[in-house]
């Protein structure tokens, strides 16, 4: 009797082990981050502490901006509701630690994609949602109209923990100009100090300069110099090691850009289901199995377009109509002279 019992136990154990393995490998297909997100019922998204046009909260605590829209798109795709996002405002210094430690699942915070960040610190950049470059802001009254007029002893206000700090050094060094870097932890303090006259120039990404300019006491007294001293491709970031989640975020962004390319907007998305163009039909979930690979249903991309809109709508709503950067510049579709070009959804 006992002999059988022993055999039976080992059999049960073996089956149990086998079962665990199979469920494990099935679950591996579905992303762990996705599973947690669906269990919690909201997407955890890291944003800036207030950068108009990119991620900015209004008095009621509603977040808007192109960076915010990336997270809302992911929420629409995986949870069916673009509003199910929990935003965590992060300083430049905190942002990567918050992501690697698992406090947030997407970092969409005007973050520059560089080799060392992508390779070193356990992060993966999934794409670019804004092509930017570093510039300088000065007071109009200073008479400076070009970076060539900078002289030894100039003081420059900026944020710590950014590529800005490094670019600034390269720029001034290569020109042999001595300068005084004044680096703050929070953007609001940088603006306050520059506005008070502590610094001769304020340097950060040009989009940031344009956005922060609107926060100055008197925006008309300041100009952004025409020169761009660096490449700053800004985009959303995820943790390394969950490639399915990485793909979901990447293709949520790509869907928004591609939707604009094919003229699909939040208003006409439903009617596009009957389009003759198979590529358009794929983008609104009316053809193919475009969500299965992510562990999502077939209309995930339709929900993004309907609830958040395409990239052009997002840009217009957040950046152009607010007067920050009315001209799209490089952030125009490749078909219209810009450099926005994404792989096809098929």
């Amino acid at each position, binding site marked *: 009797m006992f002999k059988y019992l022993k055999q039976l136990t080992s059999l049960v154990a073996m089956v149990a082990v086998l079962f665990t393995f199979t469920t494990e490998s099935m679950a591996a297909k579905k992303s762990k981050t996705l599973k947690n997100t669906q269990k919690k019922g909201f997407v955890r998204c890291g944003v800036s502490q207030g950068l108009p046009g990119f991620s900015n909260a209004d008095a009621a605590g509603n977040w808007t901006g192109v960076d915010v829209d990336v997270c809302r798109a992911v929420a629409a795709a995986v949870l069916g509701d673009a509003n199910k996002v929990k935003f965590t405002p992060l300083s*430049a*210094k905190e942002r*990567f*630690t918050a992501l*690697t430690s698992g406090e947030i699942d997407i970092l969409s915070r005007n973050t520059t994609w560089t080799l*060392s*960040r992508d390779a*070193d*610190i*356990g992060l993966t950049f999934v794409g670019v949602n804004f092509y930017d470059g570093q510039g300088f802001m*000065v*007071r109009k*009254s*200073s*008479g*400076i109209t070009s970076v060539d*007029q*900078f*002289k030894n*002893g*100039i*003081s420059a*206000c900026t944020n*710590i*923990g*950014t590529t800005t*700090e*490094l670019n*600034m*050094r390269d720029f001034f*060094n290569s020109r042999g100009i001595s*300068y*005084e*870097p*004044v*680096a*703050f*932890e*929070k953007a609001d*303090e940088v603006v*306050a*100090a520059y506005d*008070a*006259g*502590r610094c*001769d120039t304020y340097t950060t990404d040009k989009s940031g300069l344009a956005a922060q300019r609107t926060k100055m006491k008197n925006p008309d007294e300041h100009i952004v110099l025409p020169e761009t001293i660096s490449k700053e491709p800004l985009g959303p970031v995820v*943790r*390394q*090691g969950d490639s399915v989640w990485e793909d979901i975020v990447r293709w949520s962004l790509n869907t928004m850009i591609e939707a604009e390319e094919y003229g699909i907007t939040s208003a006409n998305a439903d009617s596009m289901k009957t389009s003759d163009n198979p590529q358009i039909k794929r983008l609104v979930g009316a053809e193919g199995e475009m969500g299965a690979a992510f562990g999502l249903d077939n209309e995930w991309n339709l929900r993004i377009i309907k609830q958040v809109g395409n990239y052009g709508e997002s840009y217009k709503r957040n950046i152009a109509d607010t007067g920050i950067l009315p001209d799209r510049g490089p952030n125009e579709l490749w078909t219209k002279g810009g450099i926005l070009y994404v792989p096809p959804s098929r």
Partner: protein
Amino acid sequence: MTVIAVVLVFGFFTYNAQVNMESRGIDFGYGFLSQESSFDVQFSLIEYDGSHSYFRAYLVGLLNTILVSVIGIFFATILGVIVGIARLSPNYLINKFAAFYVEFFRNIPLLLQIFFWYFAALRALPLPQDAEAMFGIAFLTIKGLYVPAFIWQNFNIFFYSIIAAIIAIIVIRIQAKKLQETQGKQTPVLLISIGLILILPVLSFLFGGVKLSFEVPVLKQLATTSFIYEGGVSLPPELIALALSLSLYTATFIAECVRAGIQGVGKGQKEAAASIGLTPNQVLKLVVMPQALRIIIPPTTNQYLNLTKNSSLAAAIAYPDLVLVFAGTALMQTGKAIEIVSITMFTYLTLSISISILMNWYNKKIAITEK
């Protein structure tokens, strides 16, 4: 048992961190310290720029932290002692003013005070081109305090003359004490000391070939409306604001320690001292203070430690201290969060323990030696 628990908990966290870091593809190591830092720092006591290593950046931050702490402790102590004694003044106005100061400054959060002194005071300061000269040589502007730099010739001779004066003062003090103990004679030690410390350096100027000249800051135009001062020494407004707020804040606590110390000495002690014919000054110096110090030192040590740790709030106003330079910029550029935070924590621990040891030594020295 406790030791095992501590080791287990610590071990668990270490193991956990290791596993998590491995699964996220982060490697652990302190090798980055020798890499080129490639960022500049606004204000540094040692030679530094972006071509130096991260370790050098760490030293820059550490020295800046020590600098602001030393300045803060110095002024907080002086102000604290004055206010503490003022609170015991029989003069109503002085007494109430000191009480108001203490209650006002210790009840407002330090970070707010730092912001106030930085942003409010910053906006009130003039631009370099509008600044009025103080004594014709120094300028307080929104970009900092510019003071003349000293340019020495034969500085070492001047330095030796001061050392000689200090040694002479110590010798005279010992002699005076002996005279007091053996023959009961009083020597005017203070007068002699002041005389020595003034006369010897003056002699070095007259006969030692020591020369001192000043390099006065000169206004320089960068653009139509932007100016700076060149030459001389410039103190950044961030340092001034931080040292000021730390001193004003901590001085309130030190004042209370001083008051407690003086009030802690029994009334009978003072009366007894007066009855044997000591003057009020002698009562304070020989009877009250030695006993009061025993009460004052330990809580004041705490305040010194607090001030040192509070100096890490510097990050809010761009003073490049250890937290801003190392646990801020360096951490961001390398992504070595665990390594850098552990080094920073260990550094603050070492700083605090050093202050503690020093103050405990002093405390032991002045404690009553039981016979």
